């Protein structure tokens, strides 16, 4: 099996991840921050250390600004529903995932917001002059930007976009679902108001983990109210982090796994993981580009994107390509619209979609050679 669906979720996970989860279930088991017994304290320390590990990866001093949610979608919902007010004008891009677009479209109806979509090119790059002009002439309250596309892998130029947005006092929410983990994310330097991440892709955690960084001074309204283990004497939600945004029993077993994933990244070296993935992505793009009848969807240059790549083959249905890759060659991909209809409209592959290849750290160059050979074979047979 050649697993190329790491943009959906990473597989396999480092061995230590499952071991850590089993260890929590068998040896700790307690809920953190509620009871006072030793297993509860152990669970509390586990949660604390996981928060620290996330903060360290993102180069943050205060782990208390990291909130855990069940995934990046929940984090984005908290950010968007928590900050956007009635009548606000919102800026977003043409490469957004439905976890941004669906909340925005609902807010359009619910709170009558206006949405401006900054178009990207077919290689999903943005015209920053247009963006600056829009920011100068329209009063945006908030901008939500996809850091890395889950279809083409293109990285939004945040170091250039964020200062422009800050200049006009526009709140910035970054969707880091595809970027956080292997791609360098320095939140001290980038300094967005909110950065959303998921635990089960490049952070190697299990599904059910994710979260967001909230900059000091930014106070989204909580989406979920309930027991936090703190201030039990009052029926009102605490107003301090992280408790304010973490009601209910945390996914301790998942976070134990996430912690192990983060430790793996630290031990292996984030830059090493990134370099390996980029090498695989570059190999794929270089060779796929040569296949007749194949259209590649990738950034202009290697350093502007991640290893995720999409392609289509003329006169072949994407679903059929994906099916054949799986059944005949044992290669797992994702076909279709990848929960990002907006992005597919932007790169002009709507509604048929693309075949997406998303290599990860545990894929090898030998596997990529097999993938290219398989796709070449499928492309060659299309006219028969």
């Amino acid at each position, binding site marked *: 099996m050649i697993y190329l669906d790491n943009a959906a979720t990473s597989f396999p996970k480092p061995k230590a991840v499952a071991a850590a989860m089993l260890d929590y279930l068998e040896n700790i088991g307690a809920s*953190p*921050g*509620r*009871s*006072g017994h030793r297993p509860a*304290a152990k669970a*509390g*320390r586990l*949660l*604390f250390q996981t*928060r620290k590990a996330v903060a360290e990866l993102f180069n943050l001093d205060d*782990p*208390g600004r990291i909130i855990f949610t069940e995934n990046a979608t929940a984090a984005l919902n908290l950010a968007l529903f928590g900050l956007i007010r009635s009548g606000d004008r919102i800026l977003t891009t043409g490469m957004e995932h439905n976890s941004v677009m669906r909340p925005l479209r609902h807010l359009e109806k619910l709170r009558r917001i206006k949405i401006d979509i900054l178009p990207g090119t077919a290689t999903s790059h943005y015209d920053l002059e247009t963006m600056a002009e829009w920011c100068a002439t329209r009063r945006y309250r908030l901008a939500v930007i996809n850091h890395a596309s889950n279809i083409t892998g293109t990285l939004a130029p945040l170091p250039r976009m964020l200062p422009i947005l800050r200049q006009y006092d526009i709140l910035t929410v970054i969707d880091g679902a595809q970027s956080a983990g292997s791609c360098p994310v320095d939140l001290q330097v980038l300094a967005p108001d909110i950065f959303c991440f998921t635990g089960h892709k490049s952070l190697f955690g299990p599904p059910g983990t994710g979260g967001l960084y909230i900059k000091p001074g930014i106070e989204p309204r909580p989406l979920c109210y309930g027991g*936090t*283990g*703190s*201030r*039990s*004497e009052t029926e009102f939600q*605490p107003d*301090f*982090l*992280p*408790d304010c945004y973490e009601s209910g029993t945390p996914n301790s077993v998942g976070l134990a796994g996430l912690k192990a994933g983060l430790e793996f990244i630290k031990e292996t070296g984030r830059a090493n993981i990134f370099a390996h993935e980029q090498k695989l992505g570059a190999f794929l793009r270089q060779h796929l580009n040569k296949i007749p009848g194949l259209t590649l969807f990738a950034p202009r240059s290697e350093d502007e994107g991640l290893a995720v790549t999409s392609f289509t083959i003329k006169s072949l249905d994407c679903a059929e390509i994906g099916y054949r890759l799986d059944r005949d060659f044992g290669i797992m991909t994702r076909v279709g619209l990848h929960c990002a209809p907006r992005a597919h409209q932007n790169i002009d592959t709507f509604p048929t979609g693309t075949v997406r290849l998303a290599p990860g750290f545990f894929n090898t160059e030998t596997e990529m050679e097999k993938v290219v050979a398989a796709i070449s074979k499928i492309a060659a047979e299309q006219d028969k």
Partner: protein
Amino acid sequence: MSKNEPVPTKLYLVFHSIHNVMLAEEILLQAGIPNKMVPVPREISSDCGMSLTCAAADFADIKTCLKKAKFTTPFKIYNFVDDRNERGFKSRASAYDD
């Protein structure tokens, strides 16, 4: 305190959230100040939270250490006295806002 008042023996550090308890525990342990994580005494709060208990003699060191580590989230230090009389163990608490 007057001559007849019992001398405090224990301190309880009480924080908003378990996150801050863990953070303070780590800071104090790294500074070599012994502490133990225990439930917040019911006299102080009905919270289902945890507190750090330390020796009263370490009061000044604790304050210095947390200040040095830029521990800015609010917490309270409670003074406990082990006060045994004929009815058994008795304790009083007074709060230091810090």
